[in-house]
């Protein structure tokens, strides 16, 4: 059932979480927006369309994955022989993530929880977070979710999807957590539903890029030795910006340290773009060449995760395109790969 939340009603709903100190929402920083724990509900620009007009980007810089897979987390600590209690995983509510991030969350859940040995921390964090997504009515020119199987009004991976219409939001519960959140709100009218559908169609119309994912997979299956990788990556500086801001990138390292006598083991993000990522203890590095590292990323998104889990893990959020200091565009890489494959008759 689709419900309608007036702007004031949504504000009241979120205010409850703000009071409990557990709401995270996009907050404007200079030139973009980031996730912040909100201390006053007035800090939150409910209308994401309004936020964009005020200078925020269509999506936050940090992906929503930080709520289930943070930049770093302490796995355990001990002093001498005594284990030290590390913090409990808090209950959080995240407002304002986009359908692409939602889809990414679903992917991360599959990767960490539904795929062999389960990662208890990711599972716990996902259970304790409520994801209130907001559909995109105005995708950016760097967005391409429809090209990779997603959409600006998709609800996969979210608990609730809100779709902005006149006066408020259409709300769709996706999970039982979402249903609980939306109880008590009036049913949306047919008119409001139609309005949301129209906005969805308009948004989809702006997302012109199409990628034949099957052909791409086939091209990558045979593209390991292609000279294309060198050509595509002279300007890549091998920082970790693309991987760290990617909503589905999930590689991590385990880091041990002693902090003033206390031994601590942490899990931290790692990036296949770093030279050290593939460094062997012997000193050999199979991916010493920057082009090899870039190839790994593209292959992982469009081939390896397909082989492993049956799905492409790029969600088309466009963050890597926006933040790359070298201006590298994964859409261009994909187009080049397909073009080369076509030329070779593959």
């Amino acid at each position, binding site marked *: 059932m689709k419900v309608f939340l007036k702007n004031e009603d949504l504000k009241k709903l979120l205010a409850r979480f703000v009071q409990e100190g557990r709401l995270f929402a996009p907050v404007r920083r200079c030139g973009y927006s980031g996730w912040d724990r909100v201390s006053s509900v007035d800090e939150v620009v409910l209308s994401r369309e309004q936020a964009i007009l005020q200078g925020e980007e269509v999506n936050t810089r940090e992906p929503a994955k930080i709520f289930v897979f943070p930049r770093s987390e302490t796995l355990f600590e001990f002093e001498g022989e005594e284990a030290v209690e590390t913090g409990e995983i808090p209950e959080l509510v995240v407002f304002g993530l986009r359908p692409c991030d939602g889809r990414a969350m679903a992917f991360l859940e599959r990767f960490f929880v539904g795929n062999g040995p389960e990662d208890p921390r990711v599972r716990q964090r996902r259970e304790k977070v409520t994801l209130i997504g907001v559909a995109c009515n105005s995708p950016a020119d760097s967005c391409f979710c429809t090209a990779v199987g997603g959409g600006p009004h998709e609800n996969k991976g979210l608990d609730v999807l809100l779709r902005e219409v006149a006066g408020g939001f259409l709300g769709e519960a996706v999970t039982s957590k979402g249903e609980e959140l939306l109880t008590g709100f009036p049913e949306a009218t047919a008119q409001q539903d139609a309005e949301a559908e129209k906005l969805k169609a308009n948004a989809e119309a702006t997302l012109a890029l199409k990628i034949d994912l099957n052909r791409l997979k086939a091209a990558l299956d045979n593209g390991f030795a292609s000279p294309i990788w060198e050509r595509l990556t002279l300007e890549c500086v091998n*920082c970790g910006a693309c991987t760290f801001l990617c909503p589905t990138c999930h590689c991590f390292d385990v880091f041990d340290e002693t902090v003033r006598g206390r031994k601590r083991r942490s899990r931290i993000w790692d990036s296949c773009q770093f030279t050290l990522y593939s460094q062997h203890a012997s000193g050999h590095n199979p991916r010493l060449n920057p082009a090899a590292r870039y190839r790994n990323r593209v292959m992982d998104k469009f081939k390896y995760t397909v082989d492993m889990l049956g799905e492409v893990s790029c969600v088309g959020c466009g963050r890597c395109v926006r933040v790359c200091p070298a201006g590298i565009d994964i859409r261009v890489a994909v187009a080049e790969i397909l073009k080369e494959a076509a030329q070779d008759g593959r």
Partner: protein
Amino acid sequence: MDKVARLRQRAKELLEKQEVVGVLGYRASSRPGISQVAFITKTEEVDRLIFDATCSQNLANYLLKVKDKGKVAVVARGCDSRSIVVLLQEKQIERGQVYILGVGCEGVIVQGEKSVSCRSCQYPNPVIYDEMLGEEVHFEPEKVEDEFDRLTPDERWQILSAEVARCIRCYACRQVCPNCYCPVCFVDASMPALVGKTHNVSDNMVFHIMRALHMAGRCVECGACHRACPMGIDLMRFNRQVAKIVRERFGLVAGAKPDEMPALTVFKPEDPQEFIR
């Protein structure tokens, strides 16, 4: 003939005569307002070369990547040329390996605004070059003045901590910097690990302070790091201050004069020591 036309013509000539194996410059990217680095090796591709206010990378960084291919031509503004001077002084490249196409610059524009490093630029024109593409540029540098220096120590620490708290340690700043070419950066050291790698404000602060210190006397304040940061951290705050300290204490500016070695590689018996007991 305008700068870009001249650049393309010269690039073509240098490649045809095989004086260089490639020309390092800029080209348009898939998105408006953003440029990419280009390494043109074929004469039919010289028309891809551009030069305008969207060119935000410091090409000296890429020189280190391509120097082994043979003699290379490189487009260089004031800041890039000073970085090249520093690399020459530090023996990372040889003068004979580079053909410098100098060009004056009026500043990099990002999202409609002049980059903070460019507003106070004192070196818009290259300090070394093999030839100039077009006229020198002259403009009044802005004085970067703000409240920061007048704040209390606690307030300053608070602001800087808040900045570096956003750092996700992607090292984009380090990777785009021509001075950061250590085979193993201090943050990647292990056995023993030097700086913690977690998302910790203290470690982030140490990373940024130490990187700024490693840049002392070498940083040309090009702003490439600042523009590369995906989290919008005010990196120029650190780098500008270190450059200022070096200028005021030792009268030196990184790369400004090829025969003046970087400040921390030389010393004078009468160096200031009022801060030492």
